[in-house]
C-alpha cells in the first residue's frame, strides 16, 4: 500500500489538475510500461500551463514538411501484403494509391497515419517517426477512413464544431457548410442523413482541421458526381496551397490529373 500512500499524498499536494498531473507523474515515474511511451505531447498540453517558453516559438524553424517511407513492409493476418515500399512526398504533391481489393491500401494509409505499425521499415513526417509525433506535428495530419467518425445523435453542426474544437481548426464553418451544400441540414441529426450526405459531413470534419497532410481512404465512395468534383477540386487546391495528400481510391481517372506520384500495390 506504500505506493498508494506516497502517490496519494504526492497527488494531493501538487496536483494542479488531476488529469494533467497523472500524465506528468506517470511519464516520469515507475510505470513506463503502462504509460506505453506516451507521445511527447503529454507535457506540451494545449493551454501550455508549463512556465517554459511556448513551444510554438521553437517549432517555427522545424524541418520541411516531407512524408518519407523507407522499405515499408506490411503484414496482415500472417500474410505479407507488400514489402520494400519507398516513396517521398514533398509539399504540394499528391500521391494516389491504387490496387485491387485486399492489396493493402487501407492498411498502408493506417500505417502512414501512425495508427498501425508496419512490420518493417519506417514512416517519418518532418524527419520524425510517425508514431512518436508531438503535439504540433500531429495537428498537421488528418486521416479519413471508411468510417465517417460522426455521432449519429449529434446534428451536422455539432459534429463539425466538435472536430473544430478538438483539432482547433481555423476553417470557418459557414462557408464549409455552403461548399458542401449542407446548410439546409445543419440542425438535422446525422442519423437522418443519407450515406452520401454523411460522407460530405465527414469530409467537412476532415477539412475543418486545416491540416497539412491529408490521408484519405476512398474519399469518393457514396459521393455523387458533384461531390466527387468538389473533393478533387479541394485536393488540387490543397496541393497548390503547399499541402500534401495521399489518396487511396478506385476511381483513378477522376483524381489522376492532380496526382504527382502513383503507388500501385
Amino acid at each position, binding site marked *: 500500500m506504500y505506493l498508494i500512500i506516497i502517490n496519494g499524498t504526492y497527488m494531493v499536494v501538487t496536483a494542479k489538475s488531476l488529469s494533467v498531473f497523472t500524465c506528468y507523474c506517470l511519464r516520469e515515474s515507475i510505470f513506463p510500461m503502462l504509460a506505453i511511451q506516451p507521445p511527447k505531447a503529454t507535457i506540451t498540453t494545449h493551454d501550455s500551463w508549463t512556465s517554459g517558453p511556448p513551444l510554438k516559438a521553437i517549432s517555427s524553424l522545424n524541418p520541411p514538411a516531407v512524408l518519407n517511407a523507407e522499405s515499408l513492409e506490411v503484414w496482415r493476418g500472417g500474410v505479407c501484403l507488400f514489402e*520494400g515500399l519507398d516513396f517521398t512526398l514533398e509539399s504540394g504533391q499528391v500521391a494516389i494509391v491504387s490496387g485491387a481489393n485486399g492489396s493493402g491500401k487501407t492498411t498502408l494509409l493506417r500505417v502512414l497515419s501512425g495508427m498501425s505499425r508496419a512490420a518493417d521499415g519506417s514512416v517519418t513526417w518532418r524527419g520524425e517517426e510517425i508514431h512518436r509525433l508531438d503535439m504540433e506535428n500531429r495537428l498537421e495530419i488528418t486521416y479519413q477512413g471508411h468510417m465517417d467518425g460522426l455521432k449519429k445523435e449529434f446534428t451536422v453542426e455539432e459534429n463539425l464544431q466538435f472536430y473544430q474544437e478538438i483539432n482547433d481548426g481555423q476553417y470557418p464553418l459557414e462557408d464549409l457548410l455552403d461548399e458542401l451544400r449542407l446548410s439546409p441540414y445543419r440542425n438535422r441529426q446525422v442519423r437522418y442523413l443519407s450515406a452520401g450526405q454523411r460522407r460530405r459531413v465527414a469530409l467537412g470534419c476532415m477539412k475543418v482541421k486545416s491540416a497539412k497532410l491529408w490521408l484519405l481512404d476512398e474519399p469518393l465512395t457514396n459521393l455523387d458526381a458533384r461531390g466527387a468534383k468538389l473533393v478533387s477540386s479541394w485536393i488540387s487546391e490543397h496541393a497548390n496551397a503547399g499541402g500534401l495528400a495521399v489518396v487511396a481510391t478506385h476511381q483513378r481517372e477522376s483524381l489522376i490529373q492532380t496526382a*504527382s506520384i502513383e503507388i500501385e500495390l
Partner: protein
Amino acid sequence: MGGYAGYVWSAYGITLAVMIANVWAAYRYHAKWRERALEEGMAKISGRQPRVKKIS
C-alpha cells in the same frame, strides 16, 4: 499415518494426476504444432514489390 491417510494419499494422488496430465498436454501441444508446421509448408505468398510511378 493416523486417521488422515485417506486425505494425504488422495492429495498426493491428485497432484500426481495433474502433473502427469500437464506433461502429456505439453508434449501433445508441441507435437500438434509440429505436425501443423509440416502440413503448412513454406509461406508461398512472398510480399509483392509495389511500383511507385512518377507522373510528370
